[in-house]
């Protein structure tokens, strides 16, 4: 008699074809435990079935890459036998349903991915996207997400040093919470997840297993509807104190030489961790599920396999090392249990008080998971917008004021002052700059980190938008004087079953790949979050990138703040006045349209190399030009340094607003002493880099072509928007 009805199959999110494949692999009808495992392993979240074909096209290698995608996180070499391990991951769906816990456990999960490989986490970042500021849920979501990140990150004692926060109506029903963790490890002591050694014990440590988060991965692989709030029980609950203990215990265990392989239990919990470890190692595994430490009574094998309880680790130990490992867990008051052993059967056998309750072939299930070539249509690049055709009856200072106080420009101090960004005592570049810089403990080296995305460019032209994000992270890392090394991608999109969304995915990935290849800047880890739709309304394509760079001498790092009066302000890179898809067009003119700016990767590389070299030779003030163009960039530099500036608009410029607010790519602003400015411009020219002196620092106003505003007034607008906005909801 069949216990699995078509309804049960559908509830587990398997399509008809996938169910057929499941029957084929099993050679019989699976029981409920086995079906549950198929369901999570083949979910979009775990299998990447819609994106795999395209992800394979990304460049992942460079001489400094120790480990690219496929492990828990990416690993790069920073010399001196040191490695940086990092990854970004989304927790979008849970954070919408339950903002505090959703965001908190997002931080916990990404930290585990990093320390699982042997790294001590040294900083966190987060990229947040919320709906329109006037939408009724936005404040509640901002408040919950920020306190969730703060509550978790602060307690584990890892500084949260950088991030971004953007508002747009397309996120009304699907906010995005992308969390990134960066860790530091010994390059010769990296830990991997491939299980090995038949007979070796499978050991569980950390928290007990409860009923939280069952089917979280499946939930994260479907669109939202109005009743999504009912899915709240699928959200996990975080315990940062235990996470702190698990970090310390894991790092201590790693010093004993007893570990063969290790993996955290993240999405799809015990199922995916044990399957992935066995599958990568080509071994079988037998689990005694009744040995799993349980938080509540009456839990079933099905629940134990699918629970997403947090702060749990799975490790394959060398034989005979159990007692030493247990002593470490006892010291840290953590659960420890031998829950099974590796076998040579190639199967996963699940036992419950001695009785077999599941028996599945590992390789076919893990490796033969579906891979789709979903139909897609290319997003056509829209017409370019002629700056002369843009109506501009708003004065330049009014425009600057409006932009400065706009939610997408205003200071996010309200957010980052709730994050402990200084703990661990190595934050040498605090939040608010182009990149944050974290010193490598007990050295003079610094790790520069940033996260970026320009969804509005990606929406208009996914390919060019994808290139632009890579270039922007490259510039942000460069602008502090660091060498960009590698990238992690967190691809957030709508429903891939719709060809136009699939077209966005394909376009963005192609653009990202092209730029990463050109800049020798590989993707070493990542995560895909699809089905970010509510009632058929998808988000703007949001492939967030997190990037890491290295500066060998932190004393040479540059920052955005103007440092002194009377310095020449120089723009590097070419200014034509590109207004298509710009913030000026969107916010000042109310038009979200037009082809986004083009990214010249060859120029990007040349300018970046020049800027970096000059910073290492003494330039101490640098800012990349991005949203809002030259005007916003100099205003930000003035506000950061409490020093004004005067900008001269070149006489041959026809539309001053386009020159001031245009978003041409590949540009930086630097300041140099006035008497050295001409020589600097010549030197740039010799390096093939366009350089123009556009004004000088000094005074207490930001003056743009003769019209000015006080730095203090601008700063009030910039600093007050967010606290005022959040206070209005209290």
């Amino acid at each position, binding site marked *: 008699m069949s216990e699995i009805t078509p309804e049960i199959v559908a509830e587990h999110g398997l399509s008809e074809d996938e169910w057929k494949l499941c029957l084929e692999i099993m050679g019989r009808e699976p029981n409920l435990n086995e079906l549950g495992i198929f369901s999570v392993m083949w979910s979009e979240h775990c299998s990447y079935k819609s994106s795999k074909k395209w992800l394979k096209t990304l460049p992942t290698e460079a001489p400094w890459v120790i480990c690219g995608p496929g492990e828990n996180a990416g690993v790069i070499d920073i010399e001196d036998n040191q490695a940086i391990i990092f990854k970004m991951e989304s927790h979008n769906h849970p954070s919408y349903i339950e903002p505090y816990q959703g965001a908190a456990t997002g931080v916990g999960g990404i930290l585990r991915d990093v320390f699982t490989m042997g790294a001590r986490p040294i900083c966190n970042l987060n990229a947040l996207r919320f709906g329109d500021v006037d939408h009724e849920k936005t404040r509640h979501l901002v408040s919950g997400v920020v*306190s969730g990140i*703060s*509550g978790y990150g*602060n*307690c*584990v*004692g890892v500084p949260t040093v950088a991030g971004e926060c953007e508002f747009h109506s397309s996120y009304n029903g699907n906010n995005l919470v992308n969390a990134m963790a960066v860790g530091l490890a010994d390059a010769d002591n990296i830990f991997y997840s491939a299980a090995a050694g038949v007979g070796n014990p499978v050991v569980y440590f950390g928290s007990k297993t409860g009923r939280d988060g069952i089917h979280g991965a499946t939930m994260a692989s479907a669109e939202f509807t109005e009743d999504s709030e009912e899915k709240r029980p699928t959200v996990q609950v975080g*315990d*940062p*104190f*235990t996470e*702190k*203990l698990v970090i*310390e215990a894991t790092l201590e265990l790693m010093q004993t030489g007893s570990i063969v392989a290790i993996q955290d239990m993240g999405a799809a919990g015990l199922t995916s961790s044990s399957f992935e470890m066995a599958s990568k190692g080509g071994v079988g595994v037998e689990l005694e599920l009744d040995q799993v430490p349980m938080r509540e009574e009456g839990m079933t094998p099905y629940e134990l396999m699918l629970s997403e309880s947090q702060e749990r680790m799975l490790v394959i130990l060398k034989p005979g090392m159990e007692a030493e490992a247990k002593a470490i867990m006892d010291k*840290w*008051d953590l659960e420890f249990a031998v829950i099974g052993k590796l076998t040579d059967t190639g199967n996963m056998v699940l036992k419950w008080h001695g009785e077999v309750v599941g028996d599945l072939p590992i390789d076919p299930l893990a490796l033969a998971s579906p891979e789709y070539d979903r139909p897609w249509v290319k997003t056509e690049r829209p017409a370019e917008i002629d700056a002369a055709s843009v109506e501009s009856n708003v004065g330049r200072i009014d425009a600057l004021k409006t932009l400065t106080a706009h939610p997408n420009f205003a200071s996010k101090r309200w957010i*980052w*002052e*709730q*994050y*402990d*960004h*200084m*703990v*661990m*005592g*190595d*934050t*040498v570049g*605090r939040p608010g700059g182009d990149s944050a810089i974290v*010193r490598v403990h007990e050295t003079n080296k610094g790790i520069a980190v940033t996260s970026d995305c320009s969804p509005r460019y990606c929406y208009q032209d996914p390919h060019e938008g994808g290139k632009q994000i890579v270039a922007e992270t490259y510039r942000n890392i460069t602008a502090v004087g660091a060498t960009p090394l590698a990238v992690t991608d967190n691809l957030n999109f709508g429903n891939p079953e719709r060809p136009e969304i699939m077209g966005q995915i394909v376009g963005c990935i192609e653009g990202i790949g092209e730029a990463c290849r050109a800049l020798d800047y590989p993707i070493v880890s990542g995560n895909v979050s699809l089905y970010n739709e509510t009632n058929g309304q998808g988000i703007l394509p949001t492939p967030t990138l997190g990037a890491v760079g290295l500066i060998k001498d*932190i*004393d040479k790092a540059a920052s955005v703040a103007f440092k002194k009066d009377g310095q020449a302000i120089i723009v590097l890179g070419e200014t034509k006045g590109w207004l298509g898809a710009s913030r000026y067009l969107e916010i000042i003119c109310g038009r979200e349209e037009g082809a986004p700016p083009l990214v010249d990767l060859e120029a990007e590389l040349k300018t970046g190399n020049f800027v970096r070299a000059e910073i290492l030779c003494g330039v101490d003030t640098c800012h990349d030009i991005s949203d809002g163009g030259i005007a916003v960039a100099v205003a930000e530099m003035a506000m950061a340094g409490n020093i004004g500036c005067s900008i001269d608009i070149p006489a041959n410029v026809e539309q001053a607003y386009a020159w001031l607010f245009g978003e041409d790519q590949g540009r930086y602003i630097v300041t140099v002493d006035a008497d050295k400015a001409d020589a600097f411009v010549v030197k740039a020219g010799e390096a093939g880099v366009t350089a123009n002196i556009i004004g000088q620092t000094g005074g207490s106003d930001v003056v743009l072509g003769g019209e000015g505003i006080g730095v203090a007034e601008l700063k009030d607008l910039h600093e007050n928007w967010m606290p005022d906005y959040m206070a209005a909801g209290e």
Partner: protein
Amino acid sequence: MKAAVIVFPGSNCDRDMMVGIEHSLGRKPEMVWHKETELPDVDFIAVPGGFSYGDYLRCGAMSAHSPIMREVVKKANAGVRVLGVCNGFQILTEAGLLPGVLMRNAKLKFICKDVHLKVENASTDFTSKYSAGQAIRIPVAHHDGNYFAADDVLKSIEDNNQVAFRYCDEAGNVSEEANINGSRNNIAGILNENKNVLGMMPHPERLCDAQLGGTDGKPLFDALVEALS
């Protein structure tokens, strides 16, 4: 100076404290695990910040009953200098070494930023390298730093010069606006009656190194090293 730093399971500023002390002392302090029942022979004990037991219960309430804290109390009563920073301050109040309590910040949010402190009492072993009335810049990072004591307790603290630091503005004015967390009398740090125990919410160990943006915390450790050598 012989120094020790107490390490609780959720301490996360223990390394920062170690490094901060090392900047002034020239060598690392001993790190003492909270399950220990004996302290080494020391003349300075630091209880660092963090979330000692996750702070799911009242902050510091569980740590105050840790085996090592009995020893810390004994030493403090015998005159050994004890510094509690942030969560360490909370632990010292829970352990009864300092009067008053630390409540949730008035605006109910975690605050991490540089603040200014007015040095109120510059004639202790902790503060002798500052001058009275000086405004120093030190970071805070806490959710529960809102100092409260009953009127009579507050009066005796004030009368006995037990206030070490108050929140102030850059110019040293002790104002309502500068009171970031709602503390009574803008109190940021207090001493015990004998002035050998100091608890403070701001983190002096975070600004002992110019690369981190300032060194206003360093004189505190310099003063201890000088007093105890």
